[in-house]
C-alpha cells in the first residue's frame, strides 16, 4: 500500500511487519479505550461503595483484580480510572495539537518576526521540565480537572509547534504550493487545504506519541496527588494509594500499574505501525 507521503514509500516486507504493529496496537488500545469509556458510564461494582468484609480480597472470579483497602472492586476502579485517564489525555492532545498546528502553520509558512517570537517562547517553555512546569501551573491555578487539562495542554504545545513548523518550512517552497500561490489562492486556503493534508501522516504519529506522553503525565500528576481527587479513581491516584500496601496486597498496585503499561504500549505500537506506513 502506498501512502500519499512525499517520502519514498516503504518496501513491501516492511509494510507487512508494520501491519503487525498496527494490528497489535489497535487491539490493545481498542480494548483499553472501550473498557475505559464503558467504565465512565457503567462498572460491575460501585467504584466508591466500601465494605469491611471485602477488604484486600485477592483476585478471584467475583473480583478479577481483587479489592483494595476499602473493599472496593479494583477492576471497576481500573475501568473508571482508565476512562478518566484516556478522556483527559485525548482532550489534552487535541487542545495542544490544535494550538500547535495554528502556531506552527503561521510561523513555518510566514517566518519573520512572528516566527522568532513564537519559537523563542516555545524554547522557554521547553526549558523547564514539563511535569515541573505543569505542577507550578496547577499550584497557581488550583487543583481540579479543568486546570489539569489546561496546564498539561500548555506544556505539550511546543512539541507540536516544532513538528508542524518544520513540515510547513519544508513544504512552503514545493512546486505545487508555488503554483497555487501564483494562481492567487487565498493564503489561508494554501495553509490549511493545500499543505495541512500533506503533513497528516507525520502529525498523526506525533498525536499518538503525544497521547502516550499525556497518559503518563496525567498518571504522574494524579500519583503526586494533583489532578483527579479521591474518591474518584484515576490510574495515578490508585497507584499512589496502593504503594502503602505493596507487600500486603501486591495486586492493588499491579492492576493500575499494568493498565498504564498496557495503554502506553498499545498507543506506542499503534504509532509505530502508522509511522512505518501501515495505514
Amino acid at each position, binding site marked *: 500500500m502506498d501512502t500519499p507521503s512525499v517520502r519514498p514509500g516503504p518496501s513491501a516486507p516492511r509494510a507487512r511487519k508494520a501491519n503487525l504493529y498496527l494490528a497489535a496496537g489497535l487491539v490493545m488500545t481498542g480494548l483499553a479505550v472501550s473498557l475505559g469509556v464503558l467504565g465512565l458510564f457503567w462498572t460491575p461494582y460501585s467504584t466508591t461503595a466500601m465494605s469491611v468484609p471485602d477488604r484486600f480480597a485477592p483476585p478471584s472470579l467475583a473480583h478479577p483484580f481483587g479489592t483494595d483497602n476499602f473493599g472496593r472492586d479494583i477492576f471497576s476502579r481500573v475501568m473508571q480510572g482508565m476512562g478518566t485517564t484516556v478522556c483527559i489525555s485525548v482532550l489534552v492532545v487535541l487542545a495542544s495539537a490544535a494550538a500547535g498546528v495554528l502556531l506552527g502553520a503561521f510561523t513555518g509558512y510566514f517566518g519573520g518576526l512572528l516566527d522568532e517570537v513564537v519559537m523563542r517562547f516555545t524554547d522557554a517553555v521547553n526549558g523547564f521540565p514539563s511535569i515541573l512546569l505543569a505542577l507550578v501551573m496547577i499550584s497557581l491555578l488550583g487543583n481540579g480537572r479543568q486546570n489539569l487539562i489546561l496546564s498539561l495542554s500548555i506544556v505539550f504545545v511546543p512539541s507540536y509547534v516544532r513538528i508542524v513548523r518544520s513540515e510547513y518550512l519544508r513544504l512552503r517552497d514545493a512546486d505545487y504550493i508555488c503554483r497555487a500561490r501564483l494562481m492567487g489562492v487565498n493564503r489561508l486556503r494554501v495553509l490549511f487545504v493545500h499543505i495541512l493534508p500533506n503533513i497528516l501522516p507525520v502529525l498523526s504519529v506525533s498525536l499518538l506519541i503525544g497521547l502516550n506522553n499525556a497518559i503518563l503525565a496525567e498518571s504522574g500528576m494524579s500519583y503526586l496527588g494533583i489532578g483527579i481527587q479521591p*474518591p474518584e479513581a484515576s490510574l495515578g491516584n490508585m497507584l499512589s494509594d496502593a504503594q502503602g500496601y505493596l*507487600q500486603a496486597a501486591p495486586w492493588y498496585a499491579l492492576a493500575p500499574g499494568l493498565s498504564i503499561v498496557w495503554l502506553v504500549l498499545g498507543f506506542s505500537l499503534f504509532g509505530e505501525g502508522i509511522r512505518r506506513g501501515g495505514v
Partner: protein
Amino acid sequence: MKKKLSSFLLTALLIMAVLGGCADGTGESSGDNSSVEPGGSAVVGIQQDIDSLDPHLATAAGTKEILFNLFEGLVKSDEKGNLIGAVASDYKISEDGLVYTFTLRDNVKFHNGNAVTAEDVKYSLERVSGLLDGTPLIAALSTITSVDILDEKTVQVTVGSANTELIYSFVAAIIPAGSGEEEGAAPVGTGPFSFVSYAPQESIVLKKNPDYWQEGLPYLDEVTFRIVGSAETALLELQGGTIDIYPYLTDSQAQTLRGGSTHQVAVSPSNVVQALFLNNAVAPLDDVKVRQAILYAIDKEAVNTFVGGGTGSLIGSAMLPTLTDYYTDLNGVYGTTANVEKAKELLAEAGYEDGFDLVIDIPSNYEFHMQTGEVIAEQLKEVGINASIHAVEWSTWLEEIYNGRQYTATISGITCDQTPGYLLNRFQTESAKNFINYSNPEYDAIYLQAQSAQDPAKKAEYYKQLQQLLTDDAATAFLQVPGNLTAISSRLAGYRFYPIYVQDMSTVYVTE
C-alpha cells in the same frame, strides 16, 4: 521527563516487591530487668528534623519526644501519665494554689558534671516564664510572678492565679544557670542521655549519662535518632536492620512486619484526637440539626476499621480516654455506627431534604486523614450530603483553615498534652484556637469554674459537663484516638509507652 517518571515508578514497584520477602531473625525474649546487661546501641527512626535543641524554644512534638531523653524538669511524667519527681524529689502546693515549694533531689548532675543547684532552677524557671527578659518561652508558665531560693535545696515559686493543672507545666527543662544562649548548639541537661552530635536533616546522636540519678539507668551506651524521609523508606530500613525502632507505622506496614520475625509491633493509644471539624459559623453547618445529622451519619467503627485497622479508640467528645479521671464515654449519644434514618430526619427538619454539597478540606500530607475523608464522604452520601474531598497543602491548611478559619469542614488531628483541660480550652468562644467557631455562653461559664476549681473531683465533674455540652451541641464530629503502631527490633526490649508523645530510651536494652 514523563518517561523517566513512569519508569521510576515501575522500577520502584519492582524493587519494593522484591525486597518484601527478605526477613530473617530470632525469636523474642523479654526477660526481666534484673538480668539486664547494660551496653549496646539503638537507632530510632523519626519523621522530621528537629526545630531546636534548646528545650525551652522547641515547639514541635517531634522534637520534644527526643529532648525527653536529654532534659528533665522539676517533675516528669511516667508511663502512666502521672507526674513523678525528677530534679525535685518532692513538691508542695499551698492551700490557695498560689505557692509551689520544690525540694531538690540530692546528687542530680548536669551532663557537664556540675551538680544542679537552686540557682540553676531559679534561672531556668525565670527564663521560661519571661521574668528574665520579658518574653515568656512557655506560655503556661508566664503566670509565675517570682522564684525564690529558700535554701540550697528548696525553691519556692509564686504564681499569679491558681490553676491545678499548672503543675504539669513544671516538666519544663532545668538547664545550667546562664547557659541559655548555648543550649541551642550544645544542649546540657540532666536527662539519662547526653548530647553528642547533630547533623541537620540527618541524625542526632546521644550517649549514656553515667551520672544519671536513677540507679542503673540508662542501659544503652548510645542512641541515634535518624530522620527517615518517608514511611516507605522506614519500612525498608526496618527490614534492612538499619533502624531498630520506628514509632509511626501505618496499618499496612504493621501487617507486613507482623508477618516476619525480626520485629514486634506494639499498639498503644496515641495522644491525638482525630475529628471531622465542622465550622459552626458557616451555613449550613451553623444549624445544630445539620451538625447532628452529620454525627448520626458517620460510622466511626468503619472509619476505625478501614483507616486504622481497628487500633483506634472511638471518642464522642474532646477528652483522651487515657485520662480516666476526666473522661466520660459519650459514644452512645450519636452511636458508633451510622443511623441513616435519624440523620435524614434531622436534615429534613433543618430544611435540607435533598441534602447539600459539602467540601471537606484535608491536609494532603496526612494519608491517615485523607483516607478517613474518603470513608466519611462515602458515609455522608448515604444521607444525601454530597461530600467531596479537597486536598490542601499543610502550610495552606495552617494558614487558611486553622488560623484563617476559611473552611466548612476539615479532617485533622490535635495532639494533646497531659493537661486534662488542654482540648476543652480551645472551645471557649474567645479562644484563639477555637477554629470551629463554637460559641456557647454556658460552656464558657463552666470552663471558667473548672479552671478555678481546686478540688480534683469537682474539676473532673466540670470537665465532664463540658464534654457533654460539646456533644449535645454537635460542635464537631469527634472520631477517634488513633492507635500508635511502633515497630521494635527483636534484639531490643524494655521499650515503654507513654500517654504523651515521647521516646523514652532510658529503659531500652539489648537482649542478645
